[in-house]
């Protein structure tokens, strides 16, 4: 059933082509319908998911038999969490692009193609299939940014595309080498993972594949596409970019690089943990001095993804679960923050410059936007009661065991996060300036924006207050034969 999330997204994309161009409400309605259906399927599967079952195969169809590539769709606790995240982010993205009128049809067609690819990555257990799905979002992402973006959009789009392709090329080289060494018979993740690759091979293949995926996860120092890409993208695209596309990288690193090359992982984990920690602190410090509101959120994404990567490197159940939880949490919150900045503020004021926003004192003109930004900001800085806290908390517990020094440095990262969030809150919404006369003419916050933002903040709050909802599903996944080899006991 879960594989239908992929089919309907692509079917929706095709349907878009046949809708008359002028019929804007049908275009939007269809996009909303498709994403809602995806969310419904994901939610249904999530609620009926049996965590004890390990990896549940859903569909396996021979695809390219000569290569040994199958259309192999399966799900485990990690996948289902991220599929659910994709469903939520997709719906929210449509709600936040309700005001798109310029070439809306193509916009939503690209949008749905992107979503379909993302669902595909999270559900593929065939490495070849996973790679195909992984490549897919790059194209729609490029066009979404290049056509509907702002602020150096061609540059941002091209930079993102090039970084993605370089990463993919690295992944591809590593995977083909592994495929050939393992006998060239299968791309099935389970069978490849069984193959005892030599330590020498793993020693160079692991960093190649991991960093290849890690580029998309914002691994320092390969993160530079992230801020420019996020800033250039239209609101919904930056919501998806930060919300789910960055997770593709982290997910690929975990599912492919780490499970295929456990010995390589052991050899390199310290170096990667250090890079992740640098990302946490560096992203935060850079966010602290940005003048463009969207760059603040863009760099904060780099910082938060550092927690994901550090969590992955702890190789303990609690740290790994924390990393997956952080993927979910950051997906929801970064989406929301970009929604506020891009849609609620930028589309109304046409500026993202913090000093100009400071003079507007938007807290009075857009109280709802201010409230949501404050809540999302608190949640992303790790305030207890929201999802970010539970996630970073677990990552830090895991990190204490493996890398006590890095855990302390990441503690400093949390303080930096507080500082840049407070600074952004202060300068954007609650400056001491009297409000400018013209800000009251700003269009009010629309219903779709309200619904979307309340949905996202509710997700963060529910997970934060009752983390078992996800943890009971994520925790048992580390016991499956595929994933349990990662753990250091």
């Amino acid at each position, binding site marked *: 059933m879960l594989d239908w999330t992929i089919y309907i997204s692509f079917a929706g994309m095709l349907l878009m082509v046949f809708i008359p161009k002028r019929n804007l409400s049908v275009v939007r309605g269809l996009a909303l319908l498709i994403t809602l259906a995806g969310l419904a399927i994901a939610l249904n599967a999530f609620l009926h998911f049996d965590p004890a079952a390990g990896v549940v195969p859903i569909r396996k169809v021979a695809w390219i038999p000569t290569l040994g590539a199958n259309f192999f769709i399966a799900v485990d606790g990690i996948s289902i969490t991220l599929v659910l995240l994709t469903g939520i982010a997709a719906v929210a993205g449509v709600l936040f692009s309700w005001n798109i009128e310029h070439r809306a049809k193509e916009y939503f067609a690209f949008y749905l193609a992107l979503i379909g690819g993302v669902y595909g990555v999270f559900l593929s257990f065939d490495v070849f299939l996973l790679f195909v799905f992984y490549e897919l979002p790059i194209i729609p992402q490029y066009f979404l940014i290049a056509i509907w973006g702002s602020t150096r959009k061609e540059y941002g789009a091209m930079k993102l595309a090039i970084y993605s392709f370089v990463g993919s090329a690295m992944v591809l080289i590593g995977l083909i080498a592994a495929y050939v060494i393992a006998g060239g018979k299968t791309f099935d993740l389970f069978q490849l993972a069984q193959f005892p690759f030599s330590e020498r091979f793993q020693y160079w293949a692991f960093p190649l594949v991991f960093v290849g995926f890690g580029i998309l996860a914002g691994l320092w120092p390969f993160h530079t596409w992230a801020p420019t890409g996020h800033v250039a993208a239209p609101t919904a695209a930056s919501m998806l970019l930060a919300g789910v596309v960055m997770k593709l990288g982290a997910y690929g690193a975990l599912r492919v690089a780490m499970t295929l090359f456990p010995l390589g992982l052991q050899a390199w984990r310290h170096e990667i943990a250090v890079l992740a920690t640098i990302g946490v602190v560096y992203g935060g410090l850079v966010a602290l001095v940005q003048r463009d509101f969207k760059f603040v959120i863009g760099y904060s994404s780099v910082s938060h993804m550092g927690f994901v990567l550090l969590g992955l490197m702890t190789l303990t*159940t*609690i740290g790994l*679960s924390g990393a997956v939880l952080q993927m979910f949490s950051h997906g929801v919150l970064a989406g929301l923050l970009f929604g506020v900045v891009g849609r609620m503020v930028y589309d109304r004021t046409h500026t993202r410059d913090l000093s100009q926003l400071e003079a507007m004192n938007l807290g009075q003109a857009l109280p709802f936007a201010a409230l949501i930004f*404050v809540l999302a900001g*608190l949640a992303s800085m790790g*305030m*207890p*009661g929201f999802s970010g*806290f*539970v996630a970073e*908390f*677990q990552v*830090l*517990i895991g990190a*204490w*065991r*493996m890398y*006590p*020094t890095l*855990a*302390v440095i990441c*503690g*400093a990262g*949390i*303080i930096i996060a*507080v*500082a840049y969030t*407070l600074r952004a809150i*202060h300068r954007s919404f*609650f400056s*001491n300036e009297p409000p400018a006369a013209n800000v009251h003419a700003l269009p009010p916050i629309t219903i779709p924006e309200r619904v979307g933002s309340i949905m996202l903040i509710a997700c963060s709050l529910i997970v934060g207050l*009752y*983390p*078992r909802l996800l*943890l*009971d599903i994520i*925790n048992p996944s580390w016991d499956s034969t595929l994933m349990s080899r990662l753990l250091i006991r």
Partner: protein
Amino acid sequence: MITVLTLLPLIGAIIVAYVRRERAARALGLTVSLVVLAIALSMLARFNAGSPQLQFVERHVWAPSIGAEYFVGLDGLSLLLVILTCLVIPFAMLAAWKFERPSNAYVALMLGLESGLIGTFTALNFVHWFLFWELSLVPAYFLIKLWGGPARSQAANQFFIYTLVGSVTLLLSFLVLYWVTRTFDLIQLADLGRSGELVARLRPQPWWPTLPAETLAALVFAGALFGFAVKVPLFPFHTWLPATYSEAPSAVSMVLTGVLSKMGVYGFLRILMPIFPEQMRAALTPLLWLSVATIVFSAFAAFAQRDLKRMLGYSSINHLGYCMLGIFAAAKYTGTDPSWTLQKAAALNGVLLQVFNHGITASALFCFVGVLEHRSAGLKYIDSFGGLRQAAPVFCGLMGIATFASLGLPGLNGFVGEFLIFKGAFPLAPWAAALALLGLFATAVFLISMMQRVFHGPVTERWAAFPDLRRSEWMIVAPAIGLMFALGIWPNLLLRLTNTTVANFAAQLAN
């Protein structure tokens, strides 16, 4: 029951935020806080003061894989602070209503703050407790940031970030404890800490940098200590406080000094002292002297202030310094001689009384300064006033009572707590207690000279027509003044509540 108490203000806050008219919002906010007070008092009536057990316990599974549990309960210490919270919040709300014309958001944040405070004082699992500890920070931040004085932004940021740095070190320390004990249950952790098991479990492990267990334990203790020392605050971590108190609106300062500052003392008593008795003893000498420095320096600093709110801020540091002195004296190692246990019980009883009394007195003083600010369109400098006594006898009389209570006049509430602290601390730590007396004198000097300059002196043209308190206004402070007399004359009201808990603490400290 505790759940209702904690969540009621939060629900009230959400409703208040959506009420259309400001007057209705204020009335609703006040009603909610009074209902909460009524519930708290009914719990007080049903509380069995003779039993050392936790009461009103509620325990539910929350997130077992990270050791989080919904676990609340009350002993004498918690109950005392819950009552204090429930008294100060409506008091501050009334004062705000009268003198600050609060908007819906202001009232809602105040209620949110109340919820955070009650949660902090009742939670017994670290994760649960930490949630509320941080939750209380957010409304306080926005109350200062949005309605404070001219330098409110810097003050609010300084307050938030300073406290948060403390919270992060505290959090990191507890994450280490979780790794070695697999529990966040504060009661269990205290048992492990007392039996020395905690240090044993911190022994060097293959993945840990090669530090001896004692050093590691000391580091963990230092992280937790910093978190609480900032909150109290203990010299030299106090620098955020004067600016914060002075920029915050007076009603918010009432809550800050009345209840928020007690969170740190509570943390010392509930968390630091039971879990790290050995580490605390090892660091006792410097800690004792820090508490003396807190008392003496802040008293002299208060003497030098021109801004009334800053002066009261330093005075607050000074009064909490006595609490620190009492706690550190009681933590001293003395062997099992039972007579020492009595001294420790006296000191700790004094600490609890001081916590409660200072909460009442200091919030009343800030309320009076709020009146001054309100009547003079924002003036809060000592030199701006003079000769008020003739124009406003009722105001000056009542504020005088609160000031005398604050400086520890026998017969008023402040005296009993400080007396008990010194009674216990003198035999336990004679030199520190003797030096701290210096602070006691300095406090008397700066408070009396403040009164002299504000109330007396030549009547200036400007203040001749200073409107005195109307009946509706002095009714607000009347309950606080009443409590000052009642507790000063009959401190058993509180001692009855705290005695068993304190005896329990003292007995544990003797081992």
